[in-house]
């Protein structure tokens, strides 16, 4: 389905289109949330609310301001960050790291998950320590680039160019896998 059709179907509150959206994007969007919110039940709750929000807010999504996935991913990311910073789960000190992701996936029993685990490792290959740090804080801890700059006293311009460099590595790895 083309993105235009998809959006039109969602605006018409069509059930089939909504299911298509779910099937195509739920895995990625759930990943955006789960890597920030560690607790499985809370992550599911956040995803439930975020997905409902997406279908309700679709009338206000403006195609000229960016693609659909980016818009949805930002809704999910912001919901996860809001949850993380709310009182409810601030007591939990455990946070996700890249290593949790790589080794967590590998320890899964299913074959599918096992293949994914190898894929994840391949994806994160070639990131140097600086870039790994950036991916971890932006993707897994929900930091903004200015927060990283402030908290770790790294100049803003350096953070920006490291964000760029890190995503370029991911881009290369995605294309390769």
């Amino acid at each position: 389905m083309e993105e235009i059709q998809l959006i039109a179907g969602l605006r018409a509150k069509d059930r089939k289109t909504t299911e298509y959206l779910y099937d195509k994007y739920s895995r990625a969007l759930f990943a955006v949330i789960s890597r920030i919110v560690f607790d499985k039940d809370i992550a599911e709750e956040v995803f439930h609310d975020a997905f409902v929000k997406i279908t309700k807010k679709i009338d206000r999504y403006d195609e000229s301001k960016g693609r659909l996935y980016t818009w949805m991913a930002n809704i999910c990311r912001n919901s996860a960050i809001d949850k993380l910073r709310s009182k409810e789960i601030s007591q939990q000190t455990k946070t996700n790291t890249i290593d949790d992701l790589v080794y967590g996936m590998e320890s899964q029993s299913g074959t599918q998950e096992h293949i994914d685990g190898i894929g994840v490792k391949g994806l994160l290959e070639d990131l140097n320590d600086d870039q790994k740090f950036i991916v971890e804080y932006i993707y897994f801890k929900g930091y903004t680039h200015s927060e990283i700059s402030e908290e770790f006293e790294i100049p803003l311009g350096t953070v920006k160019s490291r964000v760029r460099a890190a995503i370029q590595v991911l881009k290369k790895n995605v294309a390769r896998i």
Partner: protein
Amino acid sequence: MDIQSYISSGKLELFLLGELTEREREEVLSLAKTHPQIQQELDELEETMFAFDNMTGKAPPQDLKDKIFSTLEPDFILKEAPKASSAPEQTKVVPISSPWKPFAIAASIAAIVASGAAFYYADKYQERNDQFTALLQDQSVMADDLNQVNQAYDEKDAQLNEFVAGNFKRVEMRGEGFDMQKDAKVDVLWDQNASKVYVAANNLHDLSEEFDYQLWAIGDDGPVGIGLVNSGEKLTLQQMEAVAQAGAFAITIEPKGGSKAPTMEKLVVLGEVV
């Protein structure tokens, strides 16, 4: 407008991560319209981010999907609701022949009117409710924007305070004496007491993807790398790492990410502290 250096500034990534202010977003969007390379890079980056998310995640459990769709169920039905308003009219054809007939007719007319009104007001209510939700969302978007603007303002304000209160010395670095870029010119602003260093690139050529400019403070212990200089951000102040003691500053071209020691053959500019 140098498209390549705009692309490599990291702004497009921040755009996709939702970290730009409304004004900066507009800038990216209008440049993407006029420059296909920028649009293409945005598309590729979005693909990458989607692929990364998709490959690193597990699918949410089936019962969660069921729960979500049962929450959404009323919304799917809502669109078919207007058809239901024709139903009460069928009550008219019920044949009644008794003294109660006029009352029955009156009652059914009243029922039709009442249910018509109910549908009408339910519809109005829904409409108002949607408008209200939309307003609330508008407000939260505006609050977000304001927040970002405030943050940017505070940053600039703090920077300005630093410059007014501090004791900044301007160290001009030039490329005339070297083979790399004769016309290069970069200023270092250094407050020795506070150890703060800013750099402003007046003229620096753009580098290919594999290289970065690295700033060095040259003191008694030799050169120390104090950060990467982004040639794409011309004439803005970029903060570098702290330096308390230096006799000169210099910039070299290093492999992406910088080096531990400067590559002297690739010295671009040098300026002594006077």
